[in-house]
């Protein structure tokens, strides 16, 4: 294959490859710099991606359901007045079909939990235990006692932290007080039958689980519910699920995906790709100084050769092409090395990095104490693409300089 300037691709490649290794020490140092830079891009991105994924997953676990249906006014005022009737036949059919994998109805109202020693504001969740587990509640999070056993279980499941705050214990009774219809006060004593441990301390402190039938009876709301939680597919792209449920729900419900329900988490997912790109570009910019310097030095050392090649009839474009190919070879070798280093350092950490020593700090950010690095193909592609594309663009300057020498002056250089 010819380059369009007489010299074949093989010949130019051979020249570029040999020139690359003319100053082995300089080339190896640059290769290592590129490799470490690429390693940092991929490794740190995997850590950040893992942390953000964990935050989102924990957040979704705390608010199970990738899509939720509410009364249009519920989110502004989550009381029993803004409740929904049970799902009608059309919605039930939709909720029983793909892409829906599971769904659960809930009563969810603010309440006050009081023990004989203390009281706390909580969110009372009236749930049907089996569907709730199907949409995301993790039964293994119960660390004492049991989870609810049916829609009319009289017991209450509370978080470990709430138990401490209320200075009460498993098996003891606490009073749950909330607002019933027509601003009436609804209260009832519940025996604590289970204690759960949440991934986030906020969950443990704020959520109390009661059976849905018991809660509806307490609040005097009949068969009414506060929300329907729907799960299906990959949480990163809930758009198909959202469209399906919204179409089936009709106009009487407010249907929202989790990204809108928890805008902080939604934003985290949205900005992560942009953040990765910025991170990769920032590291590349640091690298690019070394790359340009290396190529500039390689060009200055060979001014006479470039002049000679032009004197012999090689066209400037061919010289530009030769230097660019040299840069491309350097970049590809650096990328290969960097990718191998990154994968080799991420794979042993697949089982997670224990961050319990700084657990409280990172829990404030909504992340859990074990970090699982997430090596995503798209992040690898992005890092490699940025290095190649920006690397070639950066190399254009030295390559252009090499091609612009006047042969008569270049040959005279000593």
């Amino acid at each position: 294959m010819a380059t369009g300037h007489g010299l074949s691709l093989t010949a130019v490649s051979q020249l570029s490859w040999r020139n690359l290794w003319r100053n082995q020490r300089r080339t190896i140092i640059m290769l290592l710099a590129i490799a470490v830079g690429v390693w940092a891009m991929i490794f740190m991105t995997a850590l950040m991606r893992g942390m953000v994924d964990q935050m989102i997953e924990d957040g979704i676990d705390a608010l199970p359901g990738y899509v939720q249906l509410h009364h249009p006014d519920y989110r502004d005022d989550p009381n029993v007045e803004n409740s929904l009737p049970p799902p009608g036949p059309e919605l039930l059919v939709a909720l029983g079909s793909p892409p829906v994998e599971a769904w659960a109805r809930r009563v969810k109202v603010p309440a006050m939990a009081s023990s004989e020693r203390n009281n706390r504001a909580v969110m009372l969740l009236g749930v049907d235990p089996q569907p709730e587990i199907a949409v995301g509640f993790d039964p293994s999070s119960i660390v004492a006692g049991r989870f609810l056993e049916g829609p009319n279980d009289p017991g209450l499941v509370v978080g470990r932290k709430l138990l401490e705050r209320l200075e009460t214990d498993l098996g003891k009774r606490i009073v749950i007080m909330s607002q019933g219809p027509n601003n009436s006060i609804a209260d009832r004593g519940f025996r604590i039958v289970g204690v759960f441990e949440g991934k986030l301390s906020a969950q443990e402190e704020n959520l109390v689980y009661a059976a849905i039938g018991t809660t509806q009876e307490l609040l005097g709301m009949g068969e009414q519910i506060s929300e329907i939680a729907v799960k299906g597919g990959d949480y990163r792209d809930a758009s198909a699920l959202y469209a399906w449920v919204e179409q089936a729900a009709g106009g009487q419900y407010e249907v929202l995906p989790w990204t809108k329900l928890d805008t902080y988490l939604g934003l985290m997912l949205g900005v992560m790709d942009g953040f990765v790109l910025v991170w990769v570009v920032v590291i590349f910019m640091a690298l690019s100084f070394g790359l340009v310097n290396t190529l500039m030095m390689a060009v200055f050392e060979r001014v006479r050769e470039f002049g000679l090649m032009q004197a012999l009839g090689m066209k400037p474009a061919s010289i530009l092409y030769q230097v660019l190919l040299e840069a491309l070879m350097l970049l590809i070798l650096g990328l290969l090395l960097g990718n191998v280093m990154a994968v080799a350092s991420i794979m042993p950490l697949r089982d997670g990095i224990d961050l319990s020593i700084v657990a409280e700090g990172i829990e404030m950010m909504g992340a859990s104490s074990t970090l699982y690095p997430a090596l995503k193909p798209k992040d690898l592609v992005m890092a490699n693409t940025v290095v190649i594309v920006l690397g070639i663009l950066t190399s254009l300057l030295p390559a252009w300089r090499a091609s612009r020498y006047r042969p008569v002056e270049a040959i005279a250089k000593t």
Partner: protein
Amino acid sequence: MAEIKCVELCKTYRQGDAIIKALDHVSLDIEQGAFICLSGPSGSGKTTLLNMIGGLDALDSGEISIDGQRVDLLEKGALADLRLHHIGFVFQSYNLIPVLSARENVEFVMQVQGVPAAERRRKSMAILEEVGLKDMEGRRPSQLSGGQQQRVAVARAIVSQPKLVLADEPTANLDSVSAKHLMELFVELNQNHRVTFLISTHDERVMRYAQRLVRMRDGKVVSDEIQISD
């Protein structure tokens, strides 16, 4: 074949505040198959004249034509083509490509010309044999002596049978034996292949080989003599 006409060539360089007249109204006719030496002290304009004829530098004024084609009017790309297909260069300091072997250096011009690999190899081996370097085809320039490097440079200049070879002080860095061998090679190529040679030198030994001796001083031709061989 190469018939060269130089008419009223002028070229000045600026060196600080001073203006140097490198070529001062130089006119020269070079017939095809000639073997000409340009002699004169450093700064007399020999190299500048060679550079102008080879299209490596631009004139201030004047005309140069090779076989009727005006070199001074050609664009950069056309000049590169002219050098590639019609002119062979031999420089004072060998100017080989260090990362290529002797054979690859000889093949370089043919590679740029797009000559097929087998033909390149055949021609380069033949010319290396002719310059006495057949056994050193795989050596890099750093593994060759100055004389051997210059012979590789000569082989590269003539391998694709140019009409004209421009040699700038080709023996300046050679010992007397190597210089003699090189000049004998030039003469042989001139006589056997009718290649036109234009050689700049201030080496009296080299001048003795020339059929015609053009002396320059301060950018002007001061004498132009036909030499009778011994």
